[in-house]
């Protein structure tokens, strides 16, 4: 219900600058995500220790620890500084964090993408054509939703074996029903609007109506939803690693690192807490970005 006061704005005005609207939390989040992305992409170029090299004399060493080793010939001493310390197997936490970012980002971004594309298409078709096909599609989605997700993840893990691709596939599959629902609800809403009827009245074909009239309208809500799922997926990867269902070693992942250090929480808390903090900040950033974008979209929808 449009408030009469809001009706007063009719002609066009220059909108407020985006940066002011989004607030500092948003920009800090974007900065953090950019940093994580940059690290993940350029990990190979960074002066890092090998993420799987074990310094078995210095396990769970504290952040900033200087390890002195003799080189392979036993001649001179080499000093290595472990900025974030080492994990329980004497591996450099910093290097593992940065390589682990690849896994978390891959899971966090690709899995929702699968759901977004497949669920989006199915949902749009169901919402647009309605009828029996819609009933069947939604019933199938109900079955997927009713099926405990962990069981499916376990099944995929046992059937296909461990692996990043399989985990992304399985997690992505699980997000399909949710995206289908969002896409369907939005499509239903828009296909009842008169501009769709008008396009039909002009003789526009269904495929054009879907692609040109409806799709542009549901893209933003879908992306906002996808951003929410991104953070869920990063946490899900962590949970799977915690249940020893994550990516196979020695590939580091944040969840695996947290799980790996949990039994030393008392003596070497940093082994768990540093990756936990990084994961927390990343998820928080995605959440904040998602919320800011949602607010922006809502505000714009409000004007429509």
């Amino acid at each position: 219900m449009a408030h009469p006061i809001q009706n007063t704005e009719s002609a066009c005005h220059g909108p407020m600058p985006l940066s002011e609207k989004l607030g500092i939390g948003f920009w800090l989040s974007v900065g953090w995500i950019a940093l994580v992305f940059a690290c993940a992409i350029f990990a190979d170029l960074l002066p890092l220790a090998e993420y799987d090299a074990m310094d078995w004399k210095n396990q769970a060493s504290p952040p900033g620890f200087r390890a002195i080793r003799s080189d392979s010939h036993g001649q001179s001493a080499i000093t290595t500084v472990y900025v974030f310390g080492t994990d329980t197997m004497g591996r450099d936490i910093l290097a593992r964090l940065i390589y682990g970012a690849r896994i978390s980002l891959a899971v966090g971004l690709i899995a929702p993408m699968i759901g977004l594309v497949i669920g989006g298409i199915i949902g749009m078709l169901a919402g647009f054509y309605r009828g029996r096909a819609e009933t069947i599609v939604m019933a199938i989605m109900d079955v997927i939703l009713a099926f405990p997700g962990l069981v499916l993840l376990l099944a995929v893990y046992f059937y296909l074996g461990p692996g990043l691709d399989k985990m992304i596939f399985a997690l992505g599959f699980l997000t399909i029903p949710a995206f289908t629902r969002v896409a369907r609800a939005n499509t239903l809403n828009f296909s009842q609007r008169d501009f769709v009827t008008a396009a039909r009245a002009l003789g526009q074909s269904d495929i054009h109506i879907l692609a040109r009239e409806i799709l542009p309208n549901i893209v933003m809500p879908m992306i906002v939803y996808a951003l929410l799922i991104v953070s869920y997926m990063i946490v899900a990867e962590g949970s799977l690693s915690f249940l020893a269902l994550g990516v196979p070693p020695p590939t580091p992942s944040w969840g695996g690192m947290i799980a790996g250090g949990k039994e030393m929480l008392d003596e070497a808390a940093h082994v768990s807490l540093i990756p936990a903090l990084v994961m927390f900040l990343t998820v928080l950033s995605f959440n904040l970005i998602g919320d800011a974008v949602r607010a922006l979209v809502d505000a714009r929808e409000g004007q429509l």
Partner: protein
Amino acid sequence: MLLMVNRLRVRIPTDRGPVCPVDGVSFTLERGKTLGLVGESGCGKTVLCRAILGLLPKGTMLSKDAEIIFDGQLLNRLPERGLNKIRGREVAMIFQDPMTALNPVMTVGRQLSEPLVHHLGMTAKDAKRKATQLMAATGIPNAEQRARLYPHQLSGGLRQRIAIAMALACEPRLLIADEPTTALDATIQADILDLLSFLHNEKRMAMILITHDLRMAAARTQNIAVMYAGKIVETATTGELFANMRMPYTRALFNAIPRIGNPTHRVLKTIVGQPPNPIDPPQGCRFSPRCLYASLKCKAEEPPLLPEDPLAHRTACWHPLT
């Protein structure tokens, strides 16, 4: 004087800058009289009425020297608690769309008895009985049965009757009716207006009737104030105004109304252009860009509402029609 509004200016911050939907408005209302507030949507009439009861959204600011005096009380300086004693008890309000103005998840009977319990301290049982009486008094048959229904189960006309019954529950001294019939069908519009006139006479309360329809105001008010872009541009007693429209806007508005007596395919007299942008209103007289009689002076200087006498026929125009 029951109500006196002086120098009221309302500022609402928005994403695109502050807006002043009401920009320096003064008027008075006598006990038992009806004031018609006429203007197109966006002219600020709704904001004006909500400002009286302090019902504007958070962040809204009233001008420092504004005064809203109801029965000797300065409403705009009253704390929320004090206002709550006035709202619904002394001053009641009816909204445009009876569907959205009633809580969809509460039975109408309960909504109706709420002010009775709250203001008059009735017991729930008494309030329920009184609510049924009120419903019957607004012409709702089978009131007892209907009190148990939810708003969506009633037709638009009945919903608006419920809203009226709710507003009149505590017998307020002022009723603000914000486009009470706009959302209704023509046949029901007349019924509701008749009902309002009847109750207004019977209870001897004052009323502000907001409408965009000059014809309606003509028949149901004693005084009229015409608003344009946040300002009152013409005000007079109803008879005087219709006999003698002096502001070009008032006349243009009146002429633009399609009439049932017009022959088919008659070209209507229209006002050219669009109402002004509230963020950046035009210089001088706000109507000047659309006015046929506008002079350079109109575009440069804002006309005051003259003469000073609040009871006279007042116009804010440099070139009033005669």
